[in-house]
């Protein structure tokens, strides 16, 4: 099929427009983070930095700097929380997914699972706050890990279930014939085959946990457990006259998920598609 000149023009214009719309805010965030405060407060703006100023990034990765200390502590908490929650969610989700896929557990139950994460967090937050408060467990990374793993679990189960569904059942049957237990089959036969699905599930779970704000806002109170989103919210509303600092924190907090998303795009997109479409 050949396109008319007009159609080509329209197509490329649309592509250009989309590129601008997608990238402009991000590029501007990066530019802000390396522009001098003067460039950022001129009217109208100096779009291109008169000189590149990387000092803010230097401060942010310096433990002895106040901002750096806070940023690195929050980064550590975020990594621990998102990583820990992803791990637990997966360990719990895989057997459950197997039960749904191969042991005929009712799909209605899976829907109940999913319904729990679709409810707004405000429905759960106060009792959780009181329970963890009673246990003396507020402001602890472990607490966030537990809450997050419950938040990730339904989606992870669903993703794993729809991926186990399409694995050939014959290999498992052969294993059972030879007298292997379910635990053994799950670990040695199913898991290796489902590795790509596990990777996709991990990635998506990690990103969701990395993004979470509401529970972290209420359950954490200082640097021992506060995650990046809360730290950024506190930081950006305080006594900061240099908007470049806020921008550089934003850039650093975006890097891990952005790199994951770009490198493992195929996994993530197929995971999302499976998750939200196939059921």
């Amino acid at each position, binding site marked *: 099929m050949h396109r008319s000149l007009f159609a080509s023009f329209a197509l490329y214009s649309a592509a250009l427009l989309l590129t601008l719309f997608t990238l402009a805010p991000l590029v501007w965030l990066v530019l802000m983070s390396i522009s001098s405060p003067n460039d950022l407060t001129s009217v109208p703006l100096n779009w291109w930095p008169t000189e590149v100023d990387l000092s803010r990034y230097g401060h942010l990765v310096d433990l002895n700097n106040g901002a750096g200390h806070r940023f690195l502590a929050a980064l550590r908490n975020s990594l621990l929380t998102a990583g820990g929650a992803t791990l637990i969610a997966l360990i719990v989700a895989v057997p459950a997914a197997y039960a749904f896929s191969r042991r005929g557990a009712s799909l209605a139950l899976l829907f109940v699972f999913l319904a729990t994460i679709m*409810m707004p967090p405000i429905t759960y937050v106060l009792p959780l706050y009181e329970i963890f408060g009673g246990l003396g467990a507020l402001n602890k990374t472990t607490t966030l890990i537990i809450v997050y793993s419950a938040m990730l679990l339904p989606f992870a189960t669903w993703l794993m279930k729809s991926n186990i569904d399409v694995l050939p059942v014959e290999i498992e049957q052969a294993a059972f014939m030879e007298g292997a237990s379910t635990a053994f089959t799950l670990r040695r036969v199913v898991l290796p085959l489902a590795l790509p699905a596990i990777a996709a599930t991990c990635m998506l779970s990690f990103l969701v946990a990395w993004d979470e704000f509401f529970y972290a806002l209420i359950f954490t109170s200082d640097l021992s457990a506060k995650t990046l989103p809360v730290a950024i919210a506190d930081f950006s509303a305080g006594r900061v006259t240099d908007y470049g600092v806020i921008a550089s924190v*934003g850039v650093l907090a975006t890097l891990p998920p952005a790199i994951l*998303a770009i490198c493992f795009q195929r996994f993530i997109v197929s995971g999302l598609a499976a998750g939200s479409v196939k059921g």
Partner: protein
Amino acid sequence: MSAISRSREKWVLLFPAILVLSLITVLPFLQTVWTSFTDAEITAREQQVNWIGLENYIWALTDPDFLEALGRTMYFTVVSVGLEGVLGIAVALLLNQKFRGRWFLRVIIILPWAVPTIVNAVAWRLIYHPDYGALNSLLLQLGFIDSYTSWLGDPDRALNMVILADVWKNFPLVAYIALAAMQTIPGDLLKAAAIEGAGAWKRFHSITLPWIIGPMLVVLILRTIEAFRVFDIIYVMTRGGPSDGTKTASFYVYQEYFSYLRSGSGASYAVVVAGISAVLILAYYAGIRRDQRGA
């Protein structure tokens, strides 16, 4: 393996998941429902919690501010999800064409989705800044405005500006799903239609749209459920202002709990919001059913 032990094994496999979800979601939910019928408060003192029946609900449903917040949340949800749907399909149509540099566009589209919500909120707040914001500067330099505008200073406009920020972050998800669905349309189908003389709009309307409508419905309801609980972007961008113009239902409940310390009444607000979410969730499952039957 016998049927009985298999069925027992099923529950063994499910047990950890059921345990975690019961403790972290089901029990707290029941607790919230119970609290909503009491006059409980957040306090460090001993308190006697009294059962007060439907009083909190009567109060909530006659509270004009809460009803306004619900209406505002619906507006936010409908407009942002609607825009994400239209934009997502348009982008998917574009990315489904062959053109040079398509791979690049397909890769970078995921970036807004990867930006953490809080960073997204902070970035757009800077972009909308009344004195040094990029939006003001850009529009002024392009000649669209004569003087700097206060983008988040007017209640109605502020909500729309927050919606724009939300759409920017979330349209990639919709676009990817739409694209994935479009790629499963048999090429012959569209070619045959083209040969029969169907125009681009007609082909989209009678072939592409019906083909992708199932998955789109599902993802859009999913987005609706998410948009309805919106809190973080509001917390950072406007804190509910100006003049409560962006105070959404979740923000309202948060405030009832942690600013006004009325857990009973806050719980009743939460249950009302949860009820509306439940309707949306049922719509979601109906959508999946329909999608599966259609596919």
